[in-house]
């Protein structure tokens, strides 16, 4: 994606290109920030209106997951090239972690 070294041979063009690219990326990031704040607001609102907990709980968890995807992919640049190993290990960690959480919310009931 955006941040690769380009070898057009002409340095100025390169830099111009890079500048444009990263400015564009910055716009994406502001959009994702706005979305994150928006999602947060919805989550808080969903709790504030005291709707049925059976709906609220999964709903706000979903919101959190979406928000985290924004964080990880845009803010932490995991969408960029060269993040194969990071994503492999992040997801593996996530898998182990989710398994742990699943266990603790099912077979530790006493």
């Amino acid at each position: 994606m955006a941040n690769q070294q380009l070898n057009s041979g002409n340095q100025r063009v390169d830099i111009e290109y890079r500048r444009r690219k990263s400015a564009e990326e910055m716009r994406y990031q502001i959009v994702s920030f706005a979305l994150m704040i928006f999602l947060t607001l919805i989550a808080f609102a969903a709790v504030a209106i005291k709707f049925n907990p059976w709906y609220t709980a999964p709903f706000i968890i979903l919101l959190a997951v979406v928000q985290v995807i924004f964080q990880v992919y845009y803010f932490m640049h995991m969408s960029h090239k060269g993040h194969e190993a990071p994503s492999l290990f992040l997801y593996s960690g996530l898998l182990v972690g989710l398994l742990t959480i699943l266990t603790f919310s099912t077979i530790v009931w006493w």
Partner: protein
Amino acid sequence: MQAEEKFTYETWPAEPERSTLESKNKFLGFWLFLGGETVLFASLFATYIALKDKVPNPSMPHAKDLFELPLTFVATILLLTSSLTSVYAIYHMKNFAFKKMMLWFGITALLGAGFLASEIYEFTKYVHEHHTFTSSAFGSAFYTLVGFHGGHVAFGLLWCLTLMIRNAKRGLNLYNAPKFYVFSLYWHFIDVVWVFIFTVVYLMGMVG
């Protein structure tokens, strides 16, 4: 490319955080560390979920009685915003704009400090409501999970300040650019954890 080399705006590489072998290693190593941190926090979350509202007698405060939306909201906005400001800082780092980068990291640190302050205020409030680290398993689990996160924020603050002070006079080079980058990764990760804390601990606590 050599770490000590001096750069100009023109010669600054596109990915300063990954342009030497050392920095590539640092970058990767830090991501791996975050993979481990994921499991660490997941274990703490799991413990919290298992012990939520487990108090010795029913008269003691439960999650429902403790948490309040406004305070959590303020803390959340502080931390989320600090995530954006550190993105700005990295943006300027990539453009070799050292001063601007420092400014944005400074703001990030301030927001982080604000978050910590709100957390400390919150904890003292709970202690007055007899919800302490030693009052119940619920209390222990709550303070451990949220406290671990708070500890990460505090460590992040120290880290950020050290980096800024240390490099105030040197400007950017390939030796410290990856350090700034890695710090910003850490800071975002803390934010990710907080998103789950405010959802799972606070919001779901209030939902019941």
